[in-house]
């Protein structure tokens, strides 16, 4: 690379795309959030009205609570399940590659299809889950899984975890592949059993994979709206109305562009704070362990 101008010319197309599709829109969203823009005409300045509304109505803190609960369930279950399966597969080379690919299959499917499929599985009338429970004599447990506020969010969380556990498993397996073989050998020679090796040798060395998995699934789950959008539309009684779903419905159901923008800004700030805190905490944990 000879000159600074040449470098700039190489980066120019990408710069334009990033400016037009990220920088300018983020600035515009910030601006809209202080207006009552409805998508037509010129936006009227509305001061902090939109943010006042978010703070003063219980609907939005409720949506935030749903989002956080959903994220906590998904991240915890998915990380633990992925870690458990990867640890098993690490010890079972004969089935490792097959199982890794097979478990990854749901991640190849679209939220649209996963949403409809599970919606039908949970369906109260001819759905697979209730039929299965009845056939094994657990008829008392059958219910409208997505129609009951106490189970709807968990039901969606299970569909989400089902979709991405194979992905988490694959990342943990990549972490296992980075553990030097002689460390494992030394552990075996010292007479450590499988559980001891996992707890004292492998888990500390997997710290970077834990960081990646937790951060990816947290950020991905915080901003997801697809499964509730398809499976419940936020119902019953707001039990599955996440903040992202609220944004999409304000945008394209109600055309409240200004208000939706202020919700997006709140969401963006939350995502940034969570990512920052997690990064600091988990990286710190990595340093302590190595």
């Amino acid at each position, binding site marked *: *690379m*000879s000159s*600074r101008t040449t470098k700039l010319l*190489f*980066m120019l*197309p*990408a*710069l334009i*795309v*990033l400016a*037009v*599709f*990220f920088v300018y*829109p*983020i600035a515009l*969203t910030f601006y809209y959030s202080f207006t009552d823009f409805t998508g037509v005409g010129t936006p009227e300045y509305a001061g902090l009205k939109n943010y006042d509304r978010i703070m003063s109505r219980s609907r939005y803190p409720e949506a935030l609570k749903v989002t956080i609960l959903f994220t906590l369930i998904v991240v915890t279950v998915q990380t633990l399940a992925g870690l458990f399966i990867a640890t098993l*597969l690490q*010890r*079972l080379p*004969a*089935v490792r*590659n097959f*199982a890794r*690919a*097979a*478990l*990854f299959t*749901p*991640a*190849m*499917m*679209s*939220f*649209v*299809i996963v949403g409809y499929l*599970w919606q*039908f*599985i949970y369906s109260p009338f*001819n759905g*697979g889950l209730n*039929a299965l429970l009845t056939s094994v004599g657990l008829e008392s447990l059958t219910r409208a899984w997505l129609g009951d506020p106490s189970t709807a969010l968990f039901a969606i969380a299970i569909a989400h975890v089902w979709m991405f556990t194979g*992905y988490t498993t*694959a*990342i943990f*397996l*990549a972490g296992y592949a980075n553990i030097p073989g002689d460390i494992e050998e030394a552990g075996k020679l010292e007479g450590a059993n499988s559980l001891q090796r996992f707890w004292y040798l492998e888990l500390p060395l997997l710290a970077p994979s834990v960081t*990646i998995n937790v951060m990816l699934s947290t950020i991905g789950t915080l*901003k997801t*709206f697809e499964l509730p959008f398809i499976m419940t539309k936020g119902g019953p009684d707001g039990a599955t109305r996440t903040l*992202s779903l609220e944004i*999409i419905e304000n*945008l*394209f159901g109600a055309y409240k*562009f200004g208000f939706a923008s202020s919700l*997006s*800004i709140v*969401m*963006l700030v939350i*995502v*940034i704070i969570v990512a920052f805190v997690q990064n600091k905490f988990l990286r710190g944990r990595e340093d302590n362990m190595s």
Partner: protein
Amino acid sequence: MTKHNIRTSIGNIFVLLLVFVMLVPVIYMILMSFRTGEEIAADPLGMPSGLFLGNYINTLESMNYFRSVANSVGITLSVTVIVAFVGSLAAYPLARSTNAWGRAFIMLVALGLATPAFVTITPIYVIFRQVGLLDNYVGIILAFTALNLPLAVFFYVGFIGAIPRDLEEAAKLDNCTDFQVFWHVIRPLLGPATATLSLFVMLMVWNDFTYPLLLLTDPDKFTVMISVYRFVGNHNIEPDLLFPAAVLGSLPLLIIFVIFQRRIVSGVTAGAVK
């Protein structure tokens, strides 16, 4: 058999059972797609009584399936070509030296990677409406290009960084311009990176439904997932239409996945780890 062997066998059987349980929803989807609505209502867990294709015929007739597949494939190809060119072009100087400007650019790319779609989607919708890119192939291709570009830049920076510089030095001694070096020396080596990248692009174009849902309204321009979404939604989730639509919607990607599974799993995992 030793104790160790017995434990390994039990473990293998357990893993295979676990895989089976995880795949039950996919198997269920395929089996149900061959049953009529009445059969499913009468016995939700029953097996198909034969290879009943009526559902598929109905679905294919009313879903505009092949048109949507052609749209998805065309958009994927266009996005891949643009993203590969723009991304590798920007990545080349970044991979060779980083100064303050380069680092600022990397920060910008990271911002693009981390921004949730709904933060930028309202302005993009408004801008597209102003310049006539709503309901337009060019518009949706540009939007998907922007979504994939940050990842592409990171991808190529890592890949080009691992290419030895000797070749470039030789070309420069022959008085090639920087662009000629890029085009004749670097670009031909990018094949494997571009192949993996194209899998990412394909996954996103095929499966994403936020962007096409908002930017496309003409059924002739729909991608596959929007067709599935509109089709199933319009029919009140009836199983004899839902399941064949779901199978048709996922089948092409699942076939590609079976063929390229090792490359896809390691590519997606590596993309996450970097």
